[in-house]
């Protein structure tokens, strides 16, 4: 059995492609073993690994004089060689096995309802955060901040790891705590925006600046930003980048709706005319 492989490694993940050629005049059963330091991540259809794969490697029959190609990923640094043939024997004539349930899933496709069809109430409210809370500006921002984080959490209802949800919950609690602390001292000075709004603007500005530095950034610039993120936050690396992208997108939505509402209110405020003199005369 001729074995030829290539390995492509990036960001701690190795992609291994294997070519097997059977020069003999008989079909041969071959077992490949992954030698990298981690489980083989096989190709999947509808979430089900292709037939012949398990965590150790791949077993298949290479027909006489033919080739078979296979490939898998492994979360491990490359090694030389990444795969080895642990079994190479004449394939016995066997009846094709009766189709397993996994075949049915691969061939027919899952029928589960799409994520968007599932009400998110299972994990808390997932409606867009409402901007028009009727009371003070401070609490409006509070509900926005927590609402936004809950939305992020809710989109992950079924298929994320718990860690992320816990973090989301922690974020939501943080947001609540911060706002609670500042709520009482909300500034009502005519020239400055209330403190919670100001701090929210500052946070959003910091995120947007970071995103701007990453936009069209050279490799050293991007690395510097990512390193800064790693030291400042527990969530660094690519997770941090994902979070940043999501955060900036949420910021854009929220800022736009705040701007729209602020403009509307400003126009109404300008249009309203309190008849001070007339009322004073009446009094």
């Amino acid at each position, binding site marked *: 059995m001729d074995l030829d492989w290539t390995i492509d490694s990036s960001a701690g993940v190795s992609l291994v492609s294997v070519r097997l050629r059977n020069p003999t005049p008989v079909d041969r059963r071959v077992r490949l073993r992954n030698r990298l330091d981690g489980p083989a991540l096989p190709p999947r259809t509808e979430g089900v690994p292709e037939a012949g794969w398990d965590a150790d490697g791949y077993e298949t029959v290479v027909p006489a004089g033919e080739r078979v190609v296979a490939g898998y990923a492994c979360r491990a640094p490359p090694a030389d060689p990444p795969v080895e043939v642990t079994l190479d024997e004449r394939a016995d004539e066997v009846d094709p096995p009766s189709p397993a349930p996994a075949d049915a899933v691969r*061939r027919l496709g899952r029928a589960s309802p799409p994520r968007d069809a599932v009400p998110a109430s299972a994990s808390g409210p997932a409606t867009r955060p409402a901007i028009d809370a009727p009371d003070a500006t401070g609490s409006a921002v509070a509900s926005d901040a927590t609402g936004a984080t809950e939305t992020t959490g809710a989109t992950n209802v079924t298929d994320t790891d718990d860690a992320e949800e816990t973090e989301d919950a922690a974020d939501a609690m943080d947001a609540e705590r911060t706002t609670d602390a500042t709520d009482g001292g909300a500034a009502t000075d005519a020239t400055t925006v209330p403190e919670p709004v100001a701090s929210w603007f500052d946070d959003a500005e910091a995120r947007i600046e970071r995103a701007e530095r990453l936009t069209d950034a050279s490799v050293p610039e991007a690395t510097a930003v990512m390193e800064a993120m790693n030291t400042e936050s527990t969530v660094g690396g690519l997770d941090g980048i994902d979070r940043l992208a999501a955060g900036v997108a949420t910021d854009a939505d929220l800022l736009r709706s705040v701007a729209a509402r602020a403009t509307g209110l400003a126009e109404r405020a300008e249009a309203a005319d309190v008849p001070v003199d007339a009322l004073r005369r009446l009094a």
Partner: protein
Amino acid sequence: MILAVAGGKGGVGKSTVAYNLGAALPAVVVDADLGMADLPRGRGPDLHDVLAGRADPVEAVRGSPVRLLPCGRSLAGARAADVTALADALRAVERECGDVVVDCPAGMRADAGVPLAVADCCVVVASPRPFALADAVRTRALARELDAGLVGVVLNRTVDEPPVDAVERTLGAPVTTVPADPRVAASVADRAPVVVAAPESRAAAGIEALSRAVQSCRPA
């Protein structure tokens, strides 16, 4: 023995046939219609919980006069349920409780295919209308591909003279007819299988005939 009650089309009476066949055999009826279940749910864990790894399949079996493993109704439950776990769940119920009748969902996706792949044999339910027959032919093809031997075809809710010969020729399997009978229609909701509630009826005779056909196909 695991028997799948299939039929590509919805509304032809798969659940009713499965329920009544469960009473006649007798067998545990598993409601495998993950998205649109319609056998009585009752209280306690259901198939959604089992397929999400939250409940033991045998402990979710309950009810009388027909023992059921019901299915949940929520979309969230349907989404969380892993249909690949259905095979093990059905085999576990068969090991502990004996024969299993699986009420399959309509359609041709994996939730209909997995029960057929696990089942030893299947029954295809069709209504005696030309358009329903096309779906029955497709389901038979799927069952053949997934190695579920076809025990027979049920023409459900027949009136007058059903086209038994034509169906037998088309599908290549013996046909059992279950005449339209309000007692069959009400059997699930009233929890009164027709073989118990109206043993002398022609519908009960049809279900009994189907039950005998299934028994005769029991794998050695």
